[in-house]
């Protein structure tokens, strides 16, 4: 019985705490997994290519324009291993 009482206390203290600072406390409480409710329900829709945040994805990370430290070490390692190096 004591364990279930504990559980009830934890769940019910949250709304009480929310009274002091409803916004932030409530946020913390659900932050773990729940998608938060939006304060407003309607706003203009953005289509493909109308992103606010651009250049946040890199596509050309793969073009080895400069040799990284890792690549240098890998080259040394292959050379040590007696492999052909271009």
């Amino acid at each position: 019985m004591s364990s279930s009482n504990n559980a009830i206390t934890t769940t019910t203290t949250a709304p009480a705490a929310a009274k002091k600072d409803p916004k932030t406390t409530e946020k913390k409480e659900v932050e773990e997994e729940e998608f938060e409710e939006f304060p407003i329900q309607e706003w203009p829709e953005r289509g493909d290519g109308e992103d606010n945040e651009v250049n946040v994805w890199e596509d050309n990370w793969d073009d080895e324009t400069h040799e990284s430290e890792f690549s240098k070490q890998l080259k040394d390692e292959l050379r040590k291993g007696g492999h052909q190096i271009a």
Partner: protein
Amino acid sequence: MPSLRSVDDYFAQVDSLCYYQDWETGEKISKMVSLKDEHSQAPFLHIDAYGSRTKRCRVTEDEVFDEIVCLHLHVLYNVHVAQDLVTAQSTQIQIIQLFNKEILQKRKDENWFLPVFYRLCTDLRWLSKCAETSVSGDDEGDSNANSFFESAAKAITECYRTCVSDVHAEQGTTKKVAMLNMTNQLFQIYFQINKLNLLKPLIRAIENCGPLYKHFLMADKVAYNYFLGRKAMFDADLNLAEKSLLYAFRNCPAESMSNKRKILIYLIPVKMFLGHMPTASLLHQYKLDEFQEVVAAVKDGNLALLDATLIRNEAFFIQCGIFLMLEKLRMITFRTLFKKVSQIVGTAQIPLEAFQTALRFVGVNDVDMEELECIIANLIASKKIKGYLSHQHRKLVISKTNAFPTLSGITTN
């Protein structure tokens, strides 16, 4: 809205709101039956079985709302005074069943009350979770685990059926417009109890809803695309996952920082898998620095670093539910490592031994020749390497042109 001082005040406010029957008023009433609204904290509203009192206030304007409000006070009493969350949850279900029977099924050609209904469902989910937590300490075993979520899903599904069958009303007043919000409610419940397969018919219904889609609220569309993208990621449908999560990210208001962050947690692994790497500043801006080393490792082909950083941040990634997805990035990391080896060696015929050396260099010591051939065969099959294996000569023979195509250019099916 003026602050409340008594039960009379509360009833008077609901009563006056029930006079107007428009969407905006629906939103106002939804606050009056919310478990998170300020009024829910007022001790004078925590009343046991208020509806059965002979002398009491009434919502004279609307009998059904009168009953709903009384039940709502009963829920508040059980949450805040009796601390009986099981009763609170079952009472909330009662409210939803009443709403279905007396409002959704009976009131034709109007839908202004839907915001109230959305609120009742959202609170039912919250109560189900609380009820679940409150009994999970009891020694009842797992026999009725999830039963609160199950009963909530059942009640909401019944309402869903009512709403989708409202086909005669005009576009502006049809209850069908509730479809998306209710699908989202069920999405969240089924995520909790791991029954995402039950969403299939609901997703199909949204896909086939035609011009109605324009009438859904942006808040619901963003949430829906977030849930759909997560599900698609688990189903390994990366193209749908990318499309849905990008829509959600693009359309989620900047002020809702924590939602944008949640979307990114799933969008990042999907994007990486498709060959698009998040910039360091994006990760930092959204407090997702746990990904920094993952990105660096995948870009470099550094398996040792990838494994180390996955282990270091294991708790975080597991909590987000993306650990397995990130582990799949090993495949891309192999590809990038092998690409580097091929560039260093500089010929079209690369001894498998060279890959072994590279693997040992990045701390992967448990891949024997057979497994290496298997990894390479998989990379060839998934079009990440153009070439073939010569088992006999223990060599990988790669195409003279574009042997390691840019990941973002590979079409996945």
